[in-house]
């Protein structure tokens, strides 16, 4: 009897140990902790990586950039000139706590994303109104914008705090990329009952540890602040087609880039992101796999402060001239041109210390982000350049510079801001040296600042503080994903950009059209109008670089650079 009892205990122990040993654990190294396990409340990449797995959305983006149903049964029925959407959701989907996912949860999630004070993804729902539950599995909503003529004087768009209120004052308008935006993390579906309870008992402040309950392929397990966050496989996941064989995913926070690389080379982590181009070479030679974003991930650019009396556009009294009409013969505009023709971006792309050839020379301004690529360069500045050396033309640069007044030829008159300790500083140094070599004057002084200060400078555009900025903007070759987002949120583009009235007309037209060729033409026309002047110099189009060990497959990078791990397989 004694032996039998202990024999059973030993067997059980052995089974447990074997089961533990057999667990397939994927370790993902990332530079910071996620911020909060609440999808619309924060949008940095580490937060994306975790929340994309815990929560589901009505639609997902496939690896080839197509919108495919997630919680929805099919693509939406879109009617009334692209302004009315009807979506059916799958029956029988359950949250990780066993509760059924209903249309009420969908409406609640949209309402939170649109109107919660701390939501960082309001733009997804910015044109949504009249959101209705048709039946237990069907939701319907309309898109449009605030109609001033319908509203009393004391009511504006920002004061409306529900979709029902919006219905009173909105007029229908198509929002072509609404469907694309429903694939974004901010459109994730959360559990209404769980979050309302967390709100009531105050646990909503615990950043998700007690209420991060989604319906995604992985469940939240634990979070050691500043160290790691662990997800476990949701064995009851509604989509039986996902291919992952991983039981647990540990997102390990490794702040120091060199520590991240060492941990990868020592095989302590399976996947890492934001790999520097030079490190990618070392990782490849050590047998790691390099993963790249599909298309170009973003642009590094040299931006001009349009309020600057030196490189911007100002009135006679020195105040910023923001009427939207370019004065292309002004000294400021000519100094911008002289700088453009002095820069050879190939030096940045080819430098082992900067891009190590994992990027390309680009001719289009970062304003191409909302407007897409121009295929027909006629009538634009693109005609002047090539994809080897950009707009580099020393003779033109010197000729224009010679025509400028002496006040703009003094050494150190241009203050250039770049993020401290980053690759942008190296790029700024290349620009400074090239301008000095071509124009014969060391015009640029570089100032390195912390991230918070950079954000403040960009939004304040104080001409006493900076004239130039070297920075990064996210975009992608499959531009239609981003086109409407930034086209719609034109307020995002107010810092160093400057549109002519002609361009603004085309932007508004593009914003009002559904996704499709007409819309792209409208945006391209806007870009052509913008290209006549020089609000920014594109330096290099970059790719998002990540790395995985050889035994990992099924991982792809979303256009924004976050990992898509639904189908990850670890051998």
């Amino acid at each position, binding site marked *: 009897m004694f032996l039998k009892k202990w024999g059973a205990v030993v067997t059980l122990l052995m089974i447990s140990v074997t089961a533990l040993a057999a667990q397939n654990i994927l370790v993902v190294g990332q530079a*910071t*902790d996620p*911020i*909060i396990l609440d999808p619309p409340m924060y949008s940095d990449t580490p937060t994306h990586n975790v929340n994309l797995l815990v929560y589901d959305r009505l639609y997902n983006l496939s690896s080839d950039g197509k919108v495919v149903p997630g919680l929805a049964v099919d693509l939406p029925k879109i009617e009334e000139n692209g302004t009315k959407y009807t979506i059916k959701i799958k029956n029988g989907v359950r949250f990780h706590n066993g509760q059924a996912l209903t249309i009420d949860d969908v409406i609640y999630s949209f309402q939170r994303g649109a109107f919660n*004070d*701390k*939501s*960082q993804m*309001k*733009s997804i729902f910015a044109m949504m109104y009249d959101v209705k539950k048709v039946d237990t599995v069907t939701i319907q909503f309309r898109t449009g914008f605030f109609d001033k003529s319908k509203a009393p004087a004391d009511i504006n768009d920002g004061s409306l705090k529900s979709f029902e209120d919006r219905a009173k004052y909105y007029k229908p308008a198509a929002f072509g990329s609404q469907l694309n935006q429903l694939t974004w993390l901010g459109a994730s579906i959360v559990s209404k009952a769980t979050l309302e309870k967390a709100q009531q008992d105050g646990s909503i*402040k*615990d*950043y998700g540890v007690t209420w991060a309950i989604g319906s995604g392929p992985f469940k939240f397990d634990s979070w*050691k*602040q*500043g*160290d790691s966050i662990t997800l476990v496989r949701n064995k009851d996941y509604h989509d039986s087609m996902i291919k992952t064989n991983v039981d647990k995913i540990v997102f*390990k*926070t*490794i*702040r*120091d880039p*060199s*520590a991240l690389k*060492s*941990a990868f*080379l*020592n095989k*302590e*982590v399976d996947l890492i992101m934001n790999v520097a181009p030079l490190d990618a070479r070392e990782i490849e030679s050590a047998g790691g796999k390099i993963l790249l974003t599909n298309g170009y991930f973003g642009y590094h650019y040299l931006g001009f402060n349009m309020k600057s009396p030196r490189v911007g556009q100002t009135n006679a009294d020195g105040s910023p001239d923001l009427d939207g009409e370019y004065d292309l013969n002004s000294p400021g505009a000519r100094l911008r041109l002289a700088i453009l023709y002095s820069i050879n971006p190939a030096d940045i792309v080819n430098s082992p210390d900067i891009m190590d050839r994992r990027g390309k020379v680009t001719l289009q301004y970062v304003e191409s982000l909302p407007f897409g690529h121009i295929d027909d360069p006629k009538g634009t500045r693109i005609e002047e350049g090539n994809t080897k050396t950009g707009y580099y033309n020393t003779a033109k640069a010197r000729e224009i510079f010679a025509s400028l007044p002496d006040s703009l030829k003094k050494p150190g008159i241009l203050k250039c801001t770049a993020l401290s300790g980053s690759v942008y500083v190296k790029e700024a140094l290349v620009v400074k040296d090239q301008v000095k070599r071509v124009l014969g004057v060391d015009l640029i002084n570089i100032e390195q*600042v*912390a*991230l*918070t*200060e950079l*954000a*403040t400078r960009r*939004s304040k555009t104080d001409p006493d503080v900076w004239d130039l900025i070297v920075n990064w903007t996210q975009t992608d070759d499959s531009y239609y994903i981003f086109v409407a987002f930034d086209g719609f*949120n034109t*307020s*995002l583009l107010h810092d160093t950009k400057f549109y002519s009235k002609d361009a603004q007309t085309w932007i508004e037209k593009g914003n009002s059209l559904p996704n499709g060729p007409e819309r792209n033409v409208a945006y391209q026309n806007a870009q052509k109008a913008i290209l006549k002047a020089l609000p920014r110099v594109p330096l290099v189009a970059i790719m998002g670089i990540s790395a995985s060990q050889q035994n990992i497959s099924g991982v792809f990078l979303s256009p924004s650079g976050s990992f898509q791990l639904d189908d990850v397989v670890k051998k």
Partner: protein
Amino acid sequence: MVKYILRRLLMIIPVLLGVTFIVFSLTYIAPGDPARMILPQDATEADIAQMRHFMGLDEPFIKQYFHFLFGFKSPSDDSSFSYKGLLALDLGRSYVSNRPVFRTILERFPNTALLSLFALLLSVLLSIPAGIISATHQYSVPDMIVSILSLLGLSMPAFWLGMILIWIFSVQLKIFPSLANPNNLKSLVLPVITLATMNTAVQARMTRSSMLEIIRQDYIRTARAKGLEEKKVIRRHALNNALIPVVTVIGLQVGQLLVGAVLTETVFSYPGIGTIMVDAIQRKDTPQILASVVFVAIVFALVNLVVDIVYAFIDPRIRAQYEGIAKIKINNSLGKSK
């Protein structure tokens, strides 16, 4: 002795007030606006102004400092911007994670304390014998080795040493993990060595010079002259006195260990308060920066208090000095009463 301890405790208050004022001032004048960091990129100037008001950032500097000490009630419905102040050990919530800042520190401090304790133990275990050997064998080969190693230890920055150790022992030899974790002792070997190196070097040099000074004293010569064995001379007569300044240095170095932990924790991705500080500074998470620095200052002040007390215990001169003062005061008061 009790009076001495009380007096030292009271002296901590102005020190901490000074520290809080300096730290608060530095954070105040540092560039970057927390309201802009919290709000989405497309927030309007009106949104930013309103957020600054909710956070109390539109108040004058001195008022903000008083809020920091005595608490702040935000006009917003969102209570996460309100706090009770430093005196109630409540500096509010992190702008980034929305967690109470002191809770985060208290959760992570044991990890830093563990790392620092191991580093302190290692440095003491290595440096004192090395210093003694070096002093008792002056100008010999062991003395030269200790001197050269101390010089190297002093001149190597912790982050550089950490990276070199990772490259050799993790990436090349694959003996130790490159990521440190408080639950895995093996993973602590490299960070402990990194953190202990500079302290070991300082303490070894301190022990050596202190020993050299002591062994040249008359009473040591007397001990030798009366035929006492050299080991006993060193252990019984020289070491006790030579260690008094070393204890002071060790006490001061506890603070250095906390500072060094910032770099070491970053290099080894170790979840301690060093990494909290780095994160907070990068994101201008003001409550978290203030709480972390003030916390380290409090720990440092307390450790120094303990060192001073220990110092008084091990150095009879200090004890006698205080007892003497007390006696004089008693005598004076007796004299007055007469």
